[in-house]
């Protein structure tokens, strides 16, 4: 482009040039990447519904007949009902505990500006970089000595402790955005700190709690290591542990593994379909606000 080109024409022209072929290539590439990301899901669903003999003959074939036999068979092979119950108890227990004690602790940590409070906060936050592998052997001994191996309590308390850094980080940054005048007004009305916390502040935490709960649900529901190591009793095993037990004997059979994978992710997909707007924030808030 030369200097003699009239100024008024430049924006429109340059825009047309740029938005032309380049943008089309961009559309195609974006489409391809999204398809690549999404294709394994579609393939998993379709293959789960095809008779195993068809899949063996032609793994990429178009489904000619559909069946739910694979799903019912996977359902019973991984003791899905029992796994669902254990996973749900572990999840709900650790969610409630993490949210309650995390928000309680974050409140004074956000309001008190003394150096000891800063240190307590820092020690909590530092916990988020510690790999669980450093803790797992001593934790195992600790839970064994406390009689908490093979118990819901052991798993729930472990998840709560491991997730406290995230919870305290979320809640502390949120409390700092709440104007202190709110608490001052409540204090003038004669409300003590406990009442102020539960009646005035806790309801305000709803959005950040939903975001945190999304994050925690993914972390706890999808975890394999904690229940694998701390739970041997078959009646307490989670969906992931039961599914993992398929590895080895059937490692490569898609007609069993695919429906098992779908059963494992189904409760998350169903609950997140209703909470869609929290997914993105749940996954990125902790990341972006640091």
């Amino acid at each position, binding site marked *: 482009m030369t200097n003699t080109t009239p100024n008024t024409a430049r924006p429109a022209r340059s*825009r047309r040039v740029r938005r032309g072929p380049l943008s089309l290539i961009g559309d195609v590439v974006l489409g391809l990447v999204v398809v690549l*990301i999404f294709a394994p899901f579609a393939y998993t669903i379709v293959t789960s519904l095809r008779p195993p003999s068809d899949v063996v003959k032609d793994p990429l074939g178009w489904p000619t007949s559909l069946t739910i036999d694979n799903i019912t068979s996977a359902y019973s092979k991984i003791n899905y009902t029992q796994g669902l119950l254990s996973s749900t108890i572990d999840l709900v227990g650790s969610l409630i505990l993490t949210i309650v004690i995390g928000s309680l602790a974050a409140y004074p940590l956000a309001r008190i500006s003394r150096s000891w409070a800063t240190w307590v906060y820092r020690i909590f936050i530092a916990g988020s970089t510690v790999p669980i592998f450093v*803790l797992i052997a*001593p934790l195992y001994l600790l839970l064994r000595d406390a009689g908490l191996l093979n118990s819901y309590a052991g798993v729930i*308390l472990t998840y709560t402790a491991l997730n406290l850094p995230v919870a305290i980080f979320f809640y502390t940054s949120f409390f700092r955005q709440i104007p202190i005048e709110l608490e001052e007004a409540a204090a003038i009305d004669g409300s003590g700190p406990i009442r102020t916390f539960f009646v005035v502040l806790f309801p305000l935490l709803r959005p950040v709690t939903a975001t945190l709960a999304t994050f925690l649900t993914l972390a706890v529901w999808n975890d*394999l290591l904690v229940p694998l190591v701390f739970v041997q009793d078959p009646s307490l095993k989670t969906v992931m542990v039961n599914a993992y037990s398929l590895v080895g004997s059937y490692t490569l059979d898609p007609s069993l593994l695919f429906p098992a*994978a779908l059963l494992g992710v189904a409760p998350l997909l169903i609950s997140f379909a209703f909470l869609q707007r929290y997914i*993105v924030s749940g996954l990125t808030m902790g990341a972006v606000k640091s």
Partner: protein
Amino acid sequence: MITRRPLVAVAFMAPAVALYLILVVYPLVQGLILSTTDSKIGNAADFVGLKNYAALANDSDVIRALGVTIAYAVVVVIAQNAVGLALARALFMRPRIRQLGSTLILLPTLMSAVMAAFVWNSLLAPDGAINALLKALGLGTLTHVWLGDPSTALWAIAVVNIWMFAGYSAAIFLAGYMNLPAELIDASSVDGASGWRRFTAVEWPLLAPATTVGVTLSLIGSLKVFELPFVMTNGGPAGSTTTLTMVIYVKIFGGGHGGFAYGATIAVLLLVIVVVFAGVTQALLRRREERI
């Protein structure tokens, strides 16, 4: 007012502090102590000083696993963030599909590593969908025993990791794009800067905070990777996918080997690596943010 009632403040913090001290801080200290003993299966043991640490330096399995872990992390961090950034930019430029697109690409992130491993183990199997697809496209020479060949197994797992989390990286970069000052983007487009020049001159420097977060998180995550190699290859073939976490797990819970204290020692090594790598990377990237 909580600030004027120190006792109440302490009571508020007590449950979280107590649980954290008992189940995180105490095990962390115990883990450090354990690494200086000769404990076999978690029973009473004698103090042996730094003997376990000295053994690390001569343990070819550990050195190999360290190399595997670092190579894996470098590849995953670069590829995952590059794909994520490209996706974020593409979605940012297309406001009408941004919302839908950013939700769709997060679907793999919802999956547990166990479930993703199931799906990909089958896709990558010798007679699985990927080889079938290659044959159908007339690329039969490219078919491969992806997870059975020591030269490809680790990278096949890296692909699964990238598949799972590229959408997550994209969400971080997209949040960065949404924070860019709108005037700046408009001004540079009116100037007629080409797409690539606009990206390198304007967007990339301004995305520095998002880059710091994306790189640091993916680095920590990939150094700690466990479930993917554990379920997909169990460390094989020929140890080519044995990460540090795999070695730790086998030493501590592998049964009968009596490597309890030694496993704890390798875990301390992993902790040091995560803290040092993440710390240095974050410090460098933060300095870069300030320079820009």
